[in-house]
């Protein structure tokens, strides 16, 4: 008995030890396997979530259905679909973007741009000029508050902040198709990210052209060039950092919406009758404003018309020649072309971001409605 015991006891211990290790391994393997399974289940659940949100988007916005389906493969998107993606990303994501604006012959200007969608659906946006005393614009839904040095803060009704990036391009690019065509160029690397390049060229080649690079992953703007008709760079916006977050930036929690200035209502001046018309207009441009005013700086009386294609605004001034500059003149101010011509008693001035030939064509196309009694 004692011998039996002495034999069996170690054996049982050995067995237990032998069993123990594989059992432990087995349990460990089981644990690993099960955690993998759980993780896959989690992924599946997440996928299901995203599919649900995507499908709900589809229901809410059936026209965007094909774009969302194709957005899984960015290479198959057309240029217009890319711009639709840009609008969607700009409107809906929470992001913080740093970019610089540079123009030939002048210093670069750095900006900080933040956007967020709050829990209650309010969209908030901030644009801050980073150098010097600064300039801060804060948008809460459709009210933009402007904080500038030397000017009391004020607010205006606006759906977007009027910054260096043309808001029409960001928010309503398809409206530009009357004047411009969008061409997909190819892939490139911008700001350290794979990007898609798109060109915007005016249909009648009468305006400056643009190049933009969009982030393949998010659809956000990474780079924006304005080129003259010879392909020389006039203005460039380059994103230096792009951060997309799930939550709106903490900055917006600090904005006290109650203390922002009350928005001013600007009533558009009533259109005034002019006895002259502009006969030539670049394709897609139309008159958006006409009145008779005094210039703020000199007090001269001018008759004024503004034309716009959404991306570019052109001003046409007509004034009495004896009160005017007195000589035909062409200037370039930043990216604006300034052309003034005198014809008899009237002086015609065209200002806008357009090539000189176009400005000249506009200025020389003026015609009188009636025999004038006004000059």
């Amino acid at each position, binding site marked *: 008995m004692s011998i039996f015991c002495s034999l069996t006891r170690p054996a049982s211990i050995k067995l237990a030890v032998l069993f123990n290790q594989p059992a432990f391994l087995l349990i460990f393997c089981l644990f690993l396997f099960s955690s993998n399974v759980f993780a896959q289940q989690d992924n599946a659940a997440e996928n299901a979530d995203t599919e649900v949100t995507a499908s709900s988007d589809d229901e809410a916005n059936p026209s965007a259905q094909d774009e969302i389906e194709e957005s899984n493969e960015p290479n198959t998107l057309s240029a217009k679909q890319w711009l639709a993606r840009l609008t969607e990303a700009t409107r809906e994501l929470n992001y913080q973007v740093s970019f610089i604006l540079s123009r030939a012959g002048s210093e670069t200007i750095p900006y900080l741009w933040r956007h967020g969608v709050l829990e209650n659906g309010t969209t908030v946006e901030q644009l801050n000029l980073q150098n010097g005393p600064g300039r801060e614009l804060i948008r809460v839904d459709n009210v933009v508050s402007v904080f500038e040095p030397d000017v009391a803060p004020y607010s205006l009704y606006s759906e977007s902040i009027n910054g260096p990036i043309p808001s029409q391009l960001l928010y309503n690019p398809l409206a530009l198709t009357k004047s411009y065509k969008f061409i997909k160029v190819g892939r490139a690397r911008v700001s350290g990210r794979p990007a898609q390049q798109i060109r915007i060229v005016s249909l009648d080649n009468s305006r400056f052209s643009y190049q933009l690079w969009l982030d393949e992953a998010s659809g956000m703007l990474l780079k924006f060039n304005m080129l003259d008709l010879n392909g020389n760079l006039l203005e460039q916006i380059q994103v230096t950092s792009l951060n997309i977050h799930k939550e709106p930036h903490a900055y917006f929690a600090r904005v006290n919406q109650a203390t922002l200035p009350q928005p001013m209502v600007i009533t558009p001046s009533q259109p005034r009758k002019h006895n002259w018309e502009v006969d030539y207009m670049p394709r897609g441009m139309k008159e958006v404003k006409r009145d008779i005013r005094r210039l*703020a700086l000199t007090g001269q009386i001018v008759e*004024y018309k503004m034309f716009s294609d959404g991306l570019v*605004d052109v001003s046409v001034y007509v004034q009495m020649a004896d009160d005017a500059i007195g*000589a035909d003149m062409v200037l370039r101010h930043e990216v604006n072309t300034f052309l*003034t011509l005198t014809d008899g008693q009237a002086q015609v001035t065209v200002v806008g971001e357009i090539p000189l030939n176009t400005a000249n064509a506009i200025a020389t196309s003026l015609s009188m409605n009636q025999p004038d009694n006004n000059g």
Partner: protein
Amino acid sequence: MTEQQEKLSAFMDGELNQTEIIDAIKHDPALQAKWQRYHVIRSGLRKEATVAPQLDLTARVAAALADEPTVMAPRSRWECIPLVGNVVPFAKQAGQFAVAASVAAAVIVGVQYSNQPTQTEPFSTFATVGPQGGLAPVSLEQTRTIPRDDMAVMLEKKRKINALIADHEQQVKLKQAEEQSAAAEEQQGIDN
């Protein structure tokens, strides 16, 4: 000793060129005193007696101080009265400031004086009317004559051009705000 004296006088006369006499003078105060006296005597004889017969005052003053009794309590002085003691040093400082300020004032007056335009013509000169036509160029070095009428016209042109460009930029800014205002008003009208 007499040998030493002879050597000393010989050394004084420049007849002896030995370093040992120098060492001897260095180490012997009696010889030093002699050296001094001989020199005084010699200059006296030569009627160059600018050196008065030496009276060692320092030794006597030191001796007198050693004999003087030590005063334990300091004498009461006006610095020790609390208020006056504080005021007087301040007055002293103020005096220093006053001196500094007067120096500065003198400097300023001097600068003003030196910057005054020099009057090259007599005061009675008839004031002639300069060329009419607005702004004259502000420049100290006018090496060539610029026709002033053109300058004024150029400035006026620039002003008019700037007025137009500024107006254009303002209108571009206003355009969007006006459109949105109109939209907002319409929206409010619908809501009401």
